[in-house]
C-alpha cells in the first residue's frame, strides 16, 4: 500500500516537474532558437536551429517528444557541442552522483556515533563539546572549507591531487580524487545530522516504552541499543532523504573548487553559451535523481516502521 502510493506520487512528481522545466526553457523565452543564438543572429541560422530543435511542431507534441526521449535515453543534441546531450551527460553523471552519494555515506558515518554519544552524555562536557562543534560545522560554507582542504592536503602536504578526475578505469584513484570534495560536502551535513540524531534519541528516551523496557531490567545502554535507536531512525531518515538533494546541489558547486568534470561544470558552461537543451535535460536528470533517492528513503521507512507496511 505504502509502496504503491509512494510510487504513484513519484511518477506524478516527475511528470509535473518535467512539464515545469519544459515550460521554463521552451515556452517562457518565446522563441528558444532566437534566444539561444542571441540578438545578432542571422535569420537563416535561427531557422536552421528551429528546424533542428523541432520547434516547428506544436508545444504539446514537442513536450512528448522530449519526455519520450528522456525515457529512452535520448536527451536531444547540444547546440554548442554538436553532440547528443546523453553523451555529454554520460561521463559527467558518474562524477556528480558518486560524489553526492560518497558525501552522504561519510556524513552518516560521522554523524551517527557523535550524535549518539551526545545524546547519552546529555548535559555533560562531551555533549556540550559536540554541540558546539556541530554548531560551527553547520555554519561553514562547504566550498570555502574545500579551498582550504586543497591548500593543506594538495598544495602543502601533496597527499592528493589538487583537482581533476582520472576516470573510473582506476577506481582507487577515482575515489581518491573524490575524497576531499566528499569530506568538504559531508562536514556541514554531518553536523546537521548529528544534531538531529541527538535530539531524536533524546526524544525517544523519554518515551513510555523506554520506561517499560527499563522495568523489564534493561540497562540504559541496552535500551538505547535495543529500543531507542531504531525509533530515532525515523526522523533521522527524513533528514538523510533531504540531505541528498543538498549534497547533489553542493556537488554541482564544489566541482568548481576541484575542477571536477561533473554535471555542475557542464551546466555552468551551458548557461554561458545559452545551450538550453543541455540545461533542460541536465536539470531534469538531477531532479529525477533527487526524487528517486527520496523515494528510496521512503521505502527505508517501511523497513523500519511496521505501521507503514500495509
Amino acid at each position, binding site marked *: 500500500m505504502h509502496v504503491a502510493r509512494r510510487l504513484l506520487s513519484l511518477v506524478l512528481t516527475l511528470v509535473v516537474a518535467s512539464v515545469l522545466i519544459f515550460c521554463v526553457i521552451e515556452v517562457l523565452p518565446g522563441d528558444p532558437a532566437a534566444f539561444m543564438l542571441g540578438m545578432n543572429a542571422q535569420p537563416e541560422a535561427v531557422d536552421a536551429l528551429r528546424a533542428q530543435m523541432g520547434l516547428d511542431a506544436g508545444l504539446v507534441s514537442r513536450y512528448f517528444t522530449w519526455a519520450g526521449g528522456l525515457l529512452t535515453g535520448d536527451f536531444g543534441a547540444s547546440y554548442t557541442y554538436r553532440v547528443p546531450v546523453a553523451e555529454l551527460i554520460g561521463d559527467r553523471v558518474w562524477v556528480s552522483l558518486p560524489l553526492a552519494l560518497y558525501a552522504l555515506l561519510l556524513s552518516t558515518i560521522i554523524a551517527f556515533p557523535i550524535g549518539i554519544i551526545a545524546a547519552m552524555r546529555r548535559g555533560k562536557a562531551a555533549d556540550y563539546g559536540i554541540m558546539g562543534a556541530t554548531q560551527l560545522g553547520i555554519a561553514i560554507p562547504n566550498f570555502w572549507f574545500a579551498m582550504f582542504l586543497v591548500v593543506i592536503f594538495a598544495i602543502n602536504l601533496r597527499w592528493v591531487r589538487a583537482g581533476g578526475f582520472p576516470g573510473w578505469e582506476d577506481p582507487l584513484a577515482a575515489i581518491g580524487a573524490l575524497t576531499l570534495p566528499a569530506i568538504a560536502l559531508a562536514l556541514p551535513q554531518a553536523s546537521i545530522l548529528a544534531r538531529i540524531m541527538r535530539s531524536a534519541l533524546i526524544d525517544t528516551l523519554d518515551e513510555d516504552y523506554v520506561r517499560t523496557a527499563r*522495568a523489564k*531490567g534493561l*540497562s540504559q545502554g541496552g535500551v538505547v541499543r535495543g529500543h531507542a535507536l531504531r525509533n530515532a531512525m525515523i526522523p533521522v531518515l527524513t533528514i538523510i532523504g533531504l540531505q541528498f538533494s543538498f549534497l547533489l546541489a553542493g556537488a554541482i558547486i564544489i566541482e568548481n573548487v576541484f575542477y571536477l568534470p561533473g554535471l555542475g561544470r557542464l551546466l555552468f558552461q551551458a548557461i554561458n553559451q545559452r545551450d538550453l537543451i543541455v540545461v533542460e535535460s541536465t536539470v531534469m536528470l538531477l531532479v529525477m535523481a533527487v526524487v528517486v533517492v527520496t523515494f528510496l528513503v521512503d521505502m527505508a521507512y517501511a523497513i523500519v*516502521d*511496521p505501521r507503514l507496511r500495509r
Partner: protein
Amino acid sequence: MSLLSVQNLSVQIGSVQILRDVSLEMAPGQVLGLVGESGSGKSMTALAIMRLLAEGMQASGSIVLQGEVLDTLSERQMCMRRGRNVGMVFQEPMTALNPLHTIGDQVAETVRLHTKTGRRAALVRAREVLDRVGLEHIGLNRFPHELSGGQRQRVVIACAIALAPKLLIADEPTTALDVTTQGEILELLRRLVREDGMGLILITHDLAVVAEMADEIAVMQTGRVVERGSVDDVLLRPQHDYTRALLAASVHQPVRQVRLESETVLQVRDVRRSYPGARRLIGRAPPVQAVRGISFDLKRGENLGLVGESGSGKSTLARALLGLEPVQSGEIRLGEYLMDADASRALRRRIGVVFQDPFGSFDPRWTVERLVAEPFHLLDNPPPRRAAVEEVLVSVGMKASDADRHIHAFSGGQRQRIAIARALIIRPDIILLDEAVSALDVQVRAQILDLLAELSAKYEVSYLFISHDLSVVRAITDRVMVMQLGQIVESGETEQVFTAPQADYTRQLLAATPRLPEGVAN
C-alpha cells in the same frame, strides 16, 4: 516474612521534597492499594521502589524486597532484579510498547534478559505467557498498533509477569481503558495474584477500584502516607480527615431542585453520521457508521445523561449537535429551527459547550476576559464585555479580577469553572458537557457538580451530560441514555436505568463498574 518493606522513603529534586517518610509493608500474595489524588506522590513511590527515578532526583530510606535490601544495590544489580523479582505495569497502554517490535519479541525480551534462553525458546515461553493473559488468539508476530488498548495492556502485563516476579507494581493500569475493559484487566490481575501468590501494588485514584481489589490500603496526600490499614478499616472507619474528605467526595450527590418544564429545547430525530473510510490507492474503504439513527428530546431545565464507551459514537453525536459537522440524515432541532453545519449565529447561541480537558480548552495567549467573551461573536449586539465577564465569573465562583489573568494561572478545577462561565455567558438554552468532570480529582469534581446543579436551577439551562463515568452521570442527571455502536440501547429515568437495567449492554456496564462498599462515608 514480609514481601516488601519500605521505611522512611523520601525523594527530593534539589530542595523540593516530593516524598516524605513513606513507609509501606506488604505480605506475600497481598494486594496493596495505593490511593491519592494527582500529585500525591503515588507514582513517584512506585518509581522509587523500582529505582527508576529520573536523573536529578535523590531518594533516601530503605527498601527491602524478599529480605534483600534494594536501595544499596548498584544499577547493574538492580537491572537484574527488575523484571525478574519485581515487574511493573504503566497507565498508558497505547504508548507503553515499542511500536517497531513484535509483541512476541517484547515479551520474550524479559525472559532473555534474565535467563540464558535462546530467542526461539524465549518465544515459546512468550507464547505461554500471552496465553495466560488471555491473548490465545493473538499471534506472536503482531505489532502493537494492530491491537486494541485492552489487548496492549495485556501484553504489558505479560512482559511484567513473564518470569513470575513476587511483586507486581501496577500504576493506574486501567485508567485509560473503558469500563468493561477495565473490569477484564482487573479480573486478570486478580487471577494472576491468586495463581502465582504474587504481591500487587495497585496504584489508582479510584477508591472503588481498590475497594474491589485490595487487601490493604495506603492513602497518600502531598507526598505522605496519611492513613494505612485494611480495606474495611480505611473505607468504613477512616481515621484521617483527608481520607474522610476523599470518601465523602467519592459518593457526593449534589442537591438538585428539579423543575421540569414541558418546553422542548432540543429535538433529535433519526440522526445518522458516517465518516469516509480509510484511503486506498484508488478510492476508499467503506464508510464508518459512527451514529446510526438516534432520536431523543431534551426539555428546558432537564439534565440528560449520555453514557457510552470509546467508539460508541457519543463524541460524533456531540459534534453534530454543536453544528460542527454535517449529518447524513435525520434532523436536529433547537426549538423550531434546524441545526446543521451552516447554522446561523442566532441559532448557535442556543447551545454552549464545556470540554473535558481543562488544560487544552483555552488559548494560552488570551486573557480570561477575552476567552470568556469569545461566544459574544454569536450576538449581534453584545453587552459591554467587561461587566458581563465579571458577572459570569462571579456566578461560577471566581473573582471579577480573574478576568485580567491568563489561563495558566489557574488550577484544573478553576479552569473548568471558567469553561462553564464561557458556555454560560450568552445564556444558552443547552450546555453540552462533554466529559466535563472526567479529568478532575474527586474533591474538585464534587465541587463542580455542585456548581452545575446550582446553575441549572438558577438559569433554567438544560444539560446534556456526556460521560463514560456512570457514577457521575447517576449523580447529576434526571434521565439517561446508554449508547453502544452508534445506537441508543436503553434510555429512561436515571434511577430506574441504574437499579433495573433492561438492556444486556447496560447490565454489563453496571456489573463492570467498580463500586464502593455500602456504608462508606455515612
